[in-house]
């Protein structure tokens, strides 16, 4: 057997892996013969659903949606947050995406439980691209879903940012920062942020300059209706 494997590769590491495979195969085949109980998928789907609901409620998970009050913290608070570490943030972002997907995708797939509350095809103000925003409400939360296509900044910028605006005086409320020009951004709206007070969806180009406020350079904007 060793001689035959030597014949197949000159790579020592690959040879070792092939030998490991040969060792497993030498014990003979072992076939899968037992289907799971018919209701097992329903149990798994229910557990996944419960995961999504629990994360959406945010009761005891680290990735809760930050409330508006928290988000209006001091600069020190913000700097501390910024230092919190990429891994933690990535985990938080991942869970938040799960929240959005759990709320939107699952219920979309199962054909119920969500309601399209309002939408807007955003108008181009500067740069390039297009986007459609949809506000989707489920039993648990409200999700702003923005479908991007070819988003292009007018000037040099580091990232894009999604905001909700008050049509009377602006007062931009930051929702999410992102880099990609195409695809879907989904954000679970924080409790207390009302789209009746802030109905205007705005996408700006931003510089990574430590200034958390709106750059004043909007690419796309539209009012949810």
């Amino acid at each position, binding site marked *: 057997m060793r001689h035959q494997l030597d014949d*197949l590769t000159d790579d020592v590491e690959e040879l070792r892996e092939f030998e490991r495979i040969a060792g497993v195969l030498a014990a003979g*085949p072992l076939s899968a013969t037992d289907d799971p109980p018919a209701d097992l998928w329903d149990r798994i789907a229910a557990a996944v659903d419960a995961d999504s609901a629990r994360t959406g409620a945010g009761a005891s998970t680290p990735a809760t949606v930050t409330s508006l009050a928290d988000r209006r913290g001091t600069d020190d608070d913000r700097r501390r947050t910024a230092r919190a570490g990429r891994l933690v943030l990535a985990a938080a972002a991942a869970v938040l995406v799960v929240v959005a997907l759990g709320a939107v*995708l699952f219920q979309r797939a199962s054909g119920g439980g969500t309601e399209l509350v309002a939408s807007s095809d955003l108008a181009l103000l500067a740069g390039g691209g297009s986007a459609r925003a949809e506000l989707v409400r489920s039993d648990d939360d409200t999700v702003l879903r923005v479908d991007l296509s070819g988003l292009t900044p007018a000037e040099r910028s580091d990232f894009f940012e999604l905001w909700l605006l008050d049509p009377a005086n602006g007062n931009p409320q930051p929702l999410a920062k992102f880099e*990609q020009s195409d695809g*879907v951004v989904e954000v679970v709206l924080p409790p207390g942020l009302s789209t009746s007070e802030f109905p205007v969806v705005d996408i700006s180009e931003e510089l990574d300059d430590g200034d958390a406020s709106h750059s004043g350079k909007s690419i796309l904007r539209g009012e949810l209706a």
Partner: protein
Amino acid sequence: MSVVAFAVAAPDRYIRAVDRAPAPPDDPVTSAFVSGDERALRAVYDAHSRLVHSYCRRVVGPDAAADVTQEVFLAAWRSRERFDPGQGTLTGWLMGIARFKAIDATRARARRPEISDEQAPEASVEDRDPDDTALRMLLTEALQQLPDRARRMVELAFFEDLTHTEIAERTNQPLGTVKSDIRRGLERLRRNMEGFDAAPA
């Protein structure tokens, strides 16, 4: 539906999109699974639940097999962003998770005192080594996915222990074809082993 966004709640939590090795283009289910599409989870379950459940049944017994199988798919779903298609197959990865879950279940049962004879599932547990059993079942499954000719040659080489020359005579194929088929077959099996080794504990 392809979701590529990372959405963040707080204004200073700026996160660059995470680069991830692209899934093989011929496996849209895997990439949909990794990106969080629950319909892909169902497809993954349909494709692998028989294998995972059969394995769990062998290692933890018929009574606990369904519960452990459920744990495997939930753990895979919750860890899906850690699955890297560039580092092995999803089948291998699932079986790697199943191995850990089966070991956990076996240990938990061993710690549980006072199990009466009627309740104890040990009598129907066929295999005791979770690693060996998982790998044997994984490679048996992976063999079925090989093209017919390559599968036959790998079986002749490793199950029947024939030399390459004997296989060439038996299958009426040139020796070079035998070697390249077996080599490609082993490479595919290796991708499954790599997925197995990469599974999160």
